Each structure stands twice: as structure tokens, then as C-alpha cells.
């Protein structure tokens, strides 16, 4: 079933778009257009996703048997480190903000670009430089510390390319900071006339909350990793007990960044989610204010809970109690969101097109991931399952089942806007379903493995655990197949897809009032906003008469 655009694409053979006004390579590599930079980011993170995914595939194949039959333990350790580092810093953290955020933020607030277009380009270059350095470290021989770089292993014992990797992450950290800074200033300064805070799309709220974390947490990571590098070079002993330092100090600093960082990965996903759910049920979100403020609440409270990763690491029992309690509190705003999305469906006009399938999958999987997160925040349970596959399952449910699903949903939703073409909805839905199935088969068994006690980062394991591992590996191959499909049908749509028209989904939002793909300066004239966001009755009546 080919997608029939709702607005018959007017026969405009050569419309002028941001894509076709200049074809030279330099016009891409030196572009200051946020839309082109978004596409540069999209291509780069896709590459990183494939590399990280390949590492995951090798790991899963190895874990199909308990004896570590495929790779040696050194290699396995390098695989999961590469997988974690790449997936976190070079795929998921940049994913939604730099691709969808970059592309859509100015369009959604009626601006011609981000506040600092040159910084935006610099951000991509920093990202790519950091990425290349990290990849170089992998090619030269890899790192085996895990993505968490725990000292003193990383600072004194590992003899792999820690410094190079850490340096790559350090550089790409500045990319994050610049993106966050750019978004914050853009939202404050460049909203078009009439676009008050409470008329903003929820996507913008989510990105704003994300940016706050990017700006305030990333420097902590940068400095902490710099200290690890310094320790390695000069054997300083800040994190080394034999010199009077303290290995737990590193963990405090690392998680002060990395817990907020997990919200960097989920807040934009939630932001996408809010757009998808409203569009495909053609209703304003239930509890706009609650969803908007819960984003900010998550961003702020997220900074208060970091030591829940350290419950059994030797922190004081008192701080264990405090951090457990605070972690429970931070789960409340997430709960608010889940319930509000579900309530938005009520009495809607629901269409299960590809983006919506991803969106619904997101709610379910995020809920499972989140609820298991609350289990981990419960002290009595964490002291059994800490650093087991239960953790692995928890965060893959949120990060893969949640964030990656939302990213894919967002890509499918805005693909017509970005490229001006419709993809095959049939293939889209098939792949969404395959990914959902494959995902659950991969990661649900890991909860059981975790409760059984299988530690993470194990290259070999006691044979009792094999059954669940085989299920998980089987699931992973289905999952990989599912991910393969969009990599095929989306590029195909660029050539063969139907033209999309301005607003194929009949969605609300300023970005849908522009041409698809937009022109270079987004809007011929800066729009003026007169009503609230998500005014679906109006949008639907307008688009009905074909005038949008």
C-alpha cells in the first residue's frame, strides 16, 4: 500500500529547496544551514550506529555459548567498550538533538536558523573529530575499560588506548555543549512573534530541558575524563588509593555527568513522542503543562540521583538512603508523561501509521525499562542485581526500546519534511513490528539472567545461564534484521517515493506550514502565531480544504 499524500502534490517540477540550491561538496562541508548540518549529523551517527551495532552483534554471537567460543576475552572486553562508547556518545546522545532538533527547532519556532549557525557547524566538526579519534583508538587496538572508565583500572592498570579514547570523548563533549548552548539561546531569542512559551510545541520544551543538561553536565564529564588522562600520563594518584587518592571520587564525578546523560538520551525521545502521539490521534496532548514541566523537572532532579549507580560500591549507607529516595522522586515526572500520553489517545482519531507504531512501542518499552529502573533504585534489590544483566536489560529497554524507537519514529515522521518524499508505509510498519518483536526477545531474557545473577561484561559464563543467552542472541539477529530494513527502504524512497507535499500527516506545527523540503531560509516571511499549539480542529479543517 503506497502512501497517498493527503494533499495532492502540486506539480512543481523544480522547486527550490535547501537541498538543491547548491550541489558542491563545499556547500555541504561549509554550510551554516541548520538543515544541512542536521543531515551531516544524520549520516555520521548512522555510521556510528552500524559500527556499534556490529560490535553488539559480535558480542551476542559470542555469548550464544558459555565458553567464549568466538573471540578471546581481551577482544570481548574491547567489543563491549567500543559498543558502549560509540552507542552512547557517538550515536544516542547526539541522535535526536542534533538530527531532528537541529532540523526542526528553527522551523518549529519560526526562525531562519539557530542562534549561532557557525557554532552549529563547529559542533559537527568537533563531533566528527572526536569520533575519528575514538575510531582511531579502536582501530589501533581498542580500549577495554567499559564505557564507564572506572578507576583505578582505567587510570593505572589497563594497557589499551585509554587516553586516545578519552580524548575523543572529551572533544565530542564540546560538540554537545555547543549544541545545548545554541538551542538554549535560540529558544530564548528567536521565537517568532506571538509564539509564547505555552504555545511552544512540546518537542521544543523537551529539547530545552535536554540542552540544560547538555550544558551543565557535559563539562563535568570532560574534566573528569581529562583527569583520567592526566593520571595515566603522570601517575598522579588522584583516583589511586595507594597514593592517597580515592577511586570512588571518579565514580562520583562520572555519574554526576552520566546519570543526567541518560536523561539527555530520553528527554528528546519523550519530546518526539509527544509530537507523534498528538499527530496520530489528532488531538492536543492531554495535560500540556504537565508534560512540559515534567521535562524540566526531570532535567533538574536528574542531577540529584547519581550515586544510585554506587549503592554497593562502598559509599556510606546514609548517602545510599538519600540517593535511593531521590531516585524514586525523579521517577514521578516520567510517570506523569506516560499517563498523559496514554490519556491523549482517549477519544482520538488514531491511525497506526509507521511513526505511530514506533510511538506506541516506545510507551510500552519505556514503561518496562522505567519500572525496572525503579527496582534498581530500591536499595534491597540493587544489592543483588547491581552489575548483572538486569542492568543491561533495564537500560536497553529504555535506550533501545525507548530512545532508538523514538528516534526512528521521529525520522519516519519528519522524513517527508526533510526529504520531500514518502517512504513505503507498508515496509515501515513491517520493520517497526519486527524491531519490536526482536527487541523483546533480545532483552527480556536478560532480566531473568540478571536476577539469576549473571554478571555483565562476562566473556564466558556458567553454563546454567545458556538457555536465556541463546534466546537473547536469537532475538538480536531478528533485531538487526529489523534495523536493516529502514536502511534500505528509506534511501529507496529518496528516488522512488511519492512527493510529500507540505503536510502529509495533517499535523499541527509551524514546520508543516513550510514547503517540503523547506527552502534555505525556512520561511519567506517570518510567521506570526496567534493560537495555541496542537490546535487540531483548526488544522484539520484548514487542511481539508486543501489550503494548509
Amino acid at each position, binding site marked *: 500500500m503506497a502512501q497517498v499524500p493527503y494533499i495532492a502534490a502540486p506539480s512543481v517540477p523544480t522547486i527550490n529547496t535547501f537541498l538543491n540550491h547548491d550541489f558542491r561538496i563545499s556547500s555541504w562541508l561549509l554550510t551554516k544551514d541548520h538543515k544541512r548540518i542536521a543531515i551531516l549529523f544524520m549520516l555520521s551517527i548512522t555510521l556510528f550506529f552500524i559500527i556499534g551495532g556490529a560490535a553488539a552483534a559480535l558480542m551476542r554471537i559470542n555469548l550464544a555459548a558459555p565458553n567464549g567460543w568466538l573471540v578471546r576475552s581481551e577482544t570481548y572486553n574491547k567489543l563491549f567498550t567500543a559498543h558502549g562508547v560509540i552507542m552512547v556518545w557517538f550515536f544516542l546522545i547526539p541522535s535526536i538533538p542534533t538530527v531532528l532538533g537541529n532540523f526542526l527547532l528553527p522551523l518549529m519556532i519560526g526562525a531562519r536558523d539557530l542562534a549561532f549557525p557557525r557554532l552549529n557547524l563547529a559542533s559537527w566538526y568537533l563531533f566528527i573529530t572526536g569520533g575519528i579519534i575514538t575510531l582511531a583508538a579502536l582501530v589501533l587496538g581498542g580500549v577495554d575499560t567499559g564505557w564507564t572508565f572506572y578507576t583505578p583500572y582505567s587510570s593505572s592498570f589497563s594497557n589499551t588506548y585509554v587516553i586516545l579514547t578519552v580524548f575523543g570523548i572529551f572533544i565530542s563533549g564540546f560538540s554537545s555543549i555547543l549544541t545545548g548552548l545554541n538551542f538554549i539561546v535560540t529558544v530564548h531569542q528567536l521565537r517568532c512573534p506571538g509564539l509564547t512559551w505555552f504555545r511552544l510545541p512540546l518537542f521544543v520544551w523537551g529539547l530545552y530541558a535536554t540542552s540544560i543538561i547538555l550544558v551543565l553536565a557535559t563539562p563535568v564529564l570532560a574534566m573528569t575524563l581529562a583527569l583520567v588522562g592526566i593520571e595515566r600520563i603522570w601517575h598522579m594518584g588522584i583516583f589511586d588509593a595507594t597514593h592517597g587518592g580515592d577511586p570512588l571520587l571518579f565514580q562520583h564525578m562520572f555519574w554526576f555527568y552520566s546519570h543526567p546523560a541518560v536523561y539527555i538520551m530520553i528527554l528528546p525521545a519523550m519530546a518526539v513522542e509527544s509530537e507523534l502521539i498528538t499527530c496520530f490521534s489528532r488531538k492536543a496532548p492531554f495535560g500540556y503543562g504537565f508534560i512540559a514541566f515534567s521535562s524540566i523537572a526531570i532535567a533538574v532532579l536528574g542531577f540529584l540521583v547519581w550515586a544510585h549507580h554506587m549503592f554497593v560500591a562502598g559509599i556510606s549507607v546514609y548517602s545510599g538512603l538519600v540517593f535511593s529516595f531521590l531516585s524514586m522522586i525523579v521517577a514521578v515526572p516520567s510517570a506523569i508523561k506516560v499517563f498523559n500520553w496514554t490519556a491523549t489517545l482517549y*477519544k482520538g482519531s488514531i491511525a497506526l501509521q509507521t511513526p505511530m507504531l514506533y510511538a506506541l512501542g516506545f510507551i510500552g518499552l519505556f514503561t518496562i525499562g522505567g519500572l525496572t529502573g525503579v527496582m534498581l533504585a530500591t536499595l534491597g534489590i540493587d544489592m543483588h542485581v547491581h552489575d548483572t544483566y538486569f542492568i543491561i536489560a533495564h537500560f536497553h529497554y529504555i535506550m533501545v526500546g525507548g530512545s532508538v524507537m523514538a528516534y526512528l519514529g521521529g525520522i519516519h515522521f519528519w522524513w517527508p519534511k526533510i526529504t520531500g518524499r514518502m517512504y513505503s508505509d507498508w515496509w515501515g510498519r513491517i520493520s517497526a513490528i519486527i524491531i519490536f518483536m526482536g527487541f523483546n526477545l533480545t532483552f527480556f531474557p536478560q532480566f531473568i539472567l540478571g536476577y539469576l545473577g549473571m554478571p555483565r561484561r562476562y566473556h564466558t559464563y556458567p553454563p546454567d545461564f545458556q538457555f536465556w543467552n541463546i534466546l537473547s542472541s536469537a532475538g538480536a539477529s531478528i533485531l538487526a534484521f529489523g534495523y536493516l530494513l529502514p536502511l534500505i527502504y528509506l534511501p529507496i524512497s529518496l528516488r522512488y517515493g511519492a512527493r510529500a507535499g507540505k503536510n502529509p500527516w495533517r499535523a499541527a506545527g509551524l514546520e508543516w506550514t513550510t514547503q517540503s523540503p523547506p527552502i534555505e531560509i525556512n520561511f519567506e516571511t517570518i510567521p506570526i502565531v496567534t493560537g495555541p499549539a496542537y490546535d487540531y480542529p483548526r488544522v484539520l479543517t484548514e487542511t481539508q480544504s486543501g489550503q494548509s
Partner: protein
Amino acid sequence: MNGISFVPESASTTASRVDNLFLFELAIAAIFVIGIFGTIIYFTIRYARRSENEIPPVQPKHTTLEVTWTLGPFCLMLIMFFWGARLYVDAKKPLDHGLEINIVGKQWMWKIQHPDGIREINELHVPVGEPVKLILTSEDVIHDFAMPAFRLKQDVLPGCYVTQWFTATRPGKYDILCSQYCGTDHSKMVGQIIALQPSDYAAWRAGIVPTDAPAAAGQKLFVTYGCSGCHGQRAPSLAGLYNSQQLMQDGSVITADESYLRKSIVDPSAQIVAGYPPMMPAYKGTLSEEQLFQLISYIKSLETVRNTAAPGALPDPLPAPSTQPAPGGQPKEIHNFPPAERPYPVNPSSFRN
């Protein structure tokens, strides 16, 4: 493939408590997950788009609903928090009695010393029904002593002592799995806890020729490393030192627990006892973690009440170390942590070097 199991064996007093809490949260999670999935499926069917032109009604605000689903989960989470906190505090507060076992983790094995001198590697024999207190440290990186069948784990840090206790409830063999990534052979850093009925345990001990008990070994070290040359003469007597209050040169007061003793030996200049010159050499690097354990066991066995004489007064005669701990592995004199000085709950990792 070795069968399919959903829940690990349960063999300690903590295990069933953790399981109960887990089941409780699992039930709540299941209710929410099923509820949310159910609602979504129902809505998508019930409100499926029937015509391209339908315009859904605008939904009014519903503050009561919002407040309900904010406070509801929050209250549930409070229950989880308190329940979990209870368990955690019980499991992590140091035990003041029980069979004390020293464990040194190093890449990639566990070295275990029993109080009566029995040593094991990657195997830990314990009697059922008796509390066992582990004092753990690492020689290199961070490890984690995980005992899934007991539902307990504790990170093992270099340069400091952490404690963890458990009481086995069922005889059997249970995994020890190093759960903190520690390098190449992290996944091979596994071992077994062998829980035995008290009678079997006694038989096992009888069948093993113990090396020197840690305290006795420590006594020898005390002489070979020259400690006895100073202590009792120019340096403070160590008798009765363990768990006493010490005044330091900088005016602070310290309880002389294991960690303090360790640091006094490894790095004496960090904390100087009031009234003495900082002349003691640092033994860092000279003594292995195991030897440190032995020296400390020896110092702990020196029971005499501390003399409060000023420096320069006649030194105490060095009392003879008490002999082996009573059979049954009970160290005799561990009256740690009088509640007055140590607020409850006490931190497991009492201090880090």
C-alpha cells in the same frame, strides 16, 4: 544446555527477603505494564480512525486525574523505598560478631584466610546457620564479591577494608562471581561458596592442616619486620589498641579499627599519634595485603587495656600474644562498634586509605 531456571537458588537469610521485595515490585510493575499496554490497545481499537475527516473532540483539563497519577505512583514508591532501605541497612551494617574471614581480591582470583589459619583460593567453606563476616580488600583494581544465591554483593576496593556479612541457610555449593569489571579475565574470577552443616564443617576443618593462624603469622612478621624493635620501647604499645580511642597529633580522635591499623602500618605519617615523633617507616609496598591482614589480626589479639602513660614513661612490657582463637572459628574479642561512638547504621567501607 543445563535446564531453564527463573530464580536463583536461595540460601541465605537475606535471600528470601530480597525475593519477597522483588516479587512485590514485580507485581506492581506487572499491573502497570499490563494496565498501560491494555489501555493503549483498547484505545487504538476503540478510537481507530474511521474517516479521514473526523475531528476528535477537544479534551478538557483534568487536574484531579493528573494529581492522582502523580501521587499514586509516588506513594507506591515510598513503600518500595522504605522496604528496600530496611533490607539494605540490615545487610550492609557491619556485624559485631560472627566468623571473621579475610578476603583479598586480586586480578583474577579470591584469596581467602580463615581466622584459624586455613587458607583457600576461590573457595570459601562456611558453616550453615552461623553469621559470617567478610572483611574484603583488593590488591589492585576494584572487584566485586557477588553471591547470587545469597542475594548479596559488595564492591571490593583497593586500599581499604569493606565488610559484608551473611548467614547461609542451606548446605550446598554456590557461585561467587566477580561482578565489577576488573580486566581481561574478569569473567574467570569466579569461585564457590561451600556451605556445610556445622558437623561437616568441623570435619572439613579437621581434615585440613592449617598454616599459621593469621594472628600467629602476624606475630612472626611483627618480629621479622622489626616492629617489635620500636613498639614497646620508643613507640606506643599496641596492646589493647584495637577499637580504642586514639588522640592524634592534629587533635582529632580516631577509633582504632582495622582500617586505621592498616593505614598506620602502610602509611604512618598520615596520622601521627599525639606525643610521638613521626619516625615509623612506611611499609607500603613492603607488606602484601595478606601480611597486613595477619599483622592486624595479631594486633587485635593483644588484649591488655591500654596504658595511658605519657611518652617517655616506662614502656609497657610487650604482652604475649594470645594464642589461637577458640575452635569453631570464633575470634574471641570482637566487641566492635559500641553504639555510642558509632551511630547506626555504620558505613560498610568504614574508611578508605
